[in-house]
């Protein structure tokens, strides 16, 4: 009786506790590993979000198809629906590669999904008339000689265009060029920008450059320039000379001198989002709005244009760099992780690095070390999903299966900004 009362009061006798712990301890440890779990979990998340997206797609299809069928029946004709953008994972990842040894080659390296490197020696294919040197320089720095061209690899970082060609900037005294090189690196064309223009990114049709407060499109084939849109002079949409830019899903993103990132519709200039990058380094907000104090130097939009990954280094000497990831629609900082410092002397990570979205929840940074061995390094970041609304007593995920919560999935349809985007740009000369 006394024993029963004791047990009802939740006490577990010591000998039973010891027995259970002995039984548990007698087994070999858990043989699973974190990487396999992450892979399996990422696949599940894709299925959950894919399932929700599929259901939404079916509903949307019904909503669109029924009125369309009615319209076709009424008019007796057929309607054509334009195809949406194809979103593919992982993004291709290229970065500037160079050897520090004398006579060493330089070019673009593509880090393949399995981590292997594909070397693309593009420089001989674009400049045969003058000597080339392989430099990593910021746009604000002068090139050393009027007879030598530099490979401007920092601004912007090399891109892979949607058709597989490579795009990068080159520079000489008083001039700036952009080059488009075939996928195999054997042939390419260059076009010279007008003085004062700064190329920042490219899509399959145009290279985008900044001219004062205007965004100018240079036709990749002909090199002809046209102004797409202009921003009001007082809205500080300035481009940081040491920062990167990117285009994905029709969205153009870049870092401005006030340490913020702007995301606009690339073709119209309609503002999608304005992200405060100083939140990444709250103790190192630039004192003066000089355009050079903002640290984030490499950025990459996800293939659907909904998230923005930023690589920066300032204020964190213990890490090789840091990666911050923002939700473009809400401006929420989803994750901020350190890239571990490797042994040996610090490497100039910014300027020789690139980011790529590997999966919807993974961002990989790769950076050239500038020496023969190791030639480059990579690091993978797991990106958390956007935070769900505050939990309620009934919002716990079901242990038996099914999505944890509807709010845990994507908050916006692919490629759509939240709310009504405001239009800050006034088209001129487009």
């Amino acid at each position, binding site marked *: 009786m006394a024993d029963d009362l004791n*047990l009802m009061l*939740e006490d577990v006798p010591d000998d039973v506790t010891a027995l259970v712990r002995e039984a548990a301890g007698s087994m070999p440890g858990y043989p699973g590993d974190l990487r396999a779990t992450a892979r399996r979990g990422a696949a599940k998340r894709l299925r959950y979000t894919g399932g929700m997206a599929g259901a939404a797609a079916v509903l949307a299809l019904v909503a669109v198809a029924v009125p369309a069928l009615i319209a076709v029946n009424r008019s007796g004709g057929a309607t054509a629906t334009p195809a949406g953008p194809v979103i593919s994972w992982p993004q291709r990842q290229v970065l500037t590669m160079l050897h520090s040894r004398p006579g060493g080659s330089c070019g673009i390296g593509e880090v393949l999904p399995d981590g292997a490197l594909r070397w693309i020696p593009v420089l001989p294919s674009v400049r045969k008339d003058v000597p080339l040197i392989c430099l990593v320089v910021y746009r604000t720095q002068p090139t050393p000689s009027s007879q030598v061209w530099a490979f401007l690899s920092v601004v912007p970082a090399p891109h892979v265009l949607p058709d597989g060609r490579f795009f990068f900037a080159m520079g000489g005294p008083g001039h700036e060029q952009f080059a488009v090189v075939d996928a195999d690196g054997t042939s390419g064309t260059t076009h010279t920008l007008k003085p004062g223009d700064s190329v920042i990114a490219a899509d399959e049709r145009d290279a985008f450059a900044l001219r004062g407060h205007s965004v100018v499109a240079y036709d990749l084939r002909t090199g002809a320039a046209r102004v797409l849109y202009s921003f009001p002079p007082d809205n500080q949409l300035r481009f940081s000379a040491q920062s990167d830019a990117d285009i994905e899903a029709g969205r153009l993103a870049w870092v401005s001198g006030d340490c913020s990132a702007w995301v606009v519709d690339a073709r119209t200039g309609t503002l999608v989002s304005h992200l405060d990058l100083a939140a990444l380094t709250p103790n190192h907000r630039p004192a003066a709005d000089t355009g050079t104090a903002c640290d984030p130097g490499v950025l990459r939009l996800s293939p659907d244009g909904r998230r923005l990954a930023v690589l920066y280094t300032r204020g964190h000497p213990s890490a090789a760099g840091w990666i911050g990831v923002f939700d473009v629609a809400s401006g929420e900082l989803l994750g901020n992780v350190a890239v571990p410092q490797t042994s040996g002397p610090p490497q100039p990570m910014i300027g020789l690095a690139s980011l790529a979205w590997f999966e919807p929840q993974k961002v990989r940074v790769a950076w050239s070390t500038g020496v023969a061995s190791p030639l480059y390094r990579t690091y993978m970041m797991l990106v958390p999903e956007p935070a769900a609304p505050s939990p309620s007593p009934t919002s716990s995920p079901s242990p038996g299966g099914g999505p944890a919560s509807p709010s845990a999935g994507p908050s916006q349809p692919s490629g759509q900004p939240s709310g009504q985007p405001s239009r800050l740009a006034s088209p001129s000369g487009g």
Partner: protein
Amino acid sequence: MARPAGRAQPAKALEFEEFYRSHADRLYRALALTLGDTHLAKEATDEATARAYARWPTVSRLENPGGWAYRVGLNWATSWRRKVRRERPMPPSDPREGEPATGGSGGVEALRLLAALPVPQRVVIVCRVLLDMSTVETARLLGVADGTVKSRLARGLSALRSTLTEEMDNGR
């Protein structure tokens, strides 16, 4: 215009890694004791941790993510056994299935004693002893009344103690 929130979310990926490193092994042992099958426990742990990863933003906010993962693993294993039984009638399960590869005879004996208990009693004992949960937390996790947990615990502990006493009396 969408303005930034201006606040840093914790690094969820690192949080999950920390959760995994601190919970996965204990979760596996708890499931192995409950299920009496280390192979099935391994699969159940894999499944539970993968689901936790997939829903980590929500799971991480739960009061007891480890308990949630245990329940997920248990439910998954139960469903799997039901499915297998439906499709291919199995012989009665051998409580020593998936015996430990290491450990002395004491551990094997302890496993045998625990395996002799009905599963519901094993579950509450594992929750109390290995997962350090109170009866209230256990009841909430399993979706049963506090009294049910207490009575299962009492019966299970009583059975274990009587077996232990018997074996001590028999000099085993």
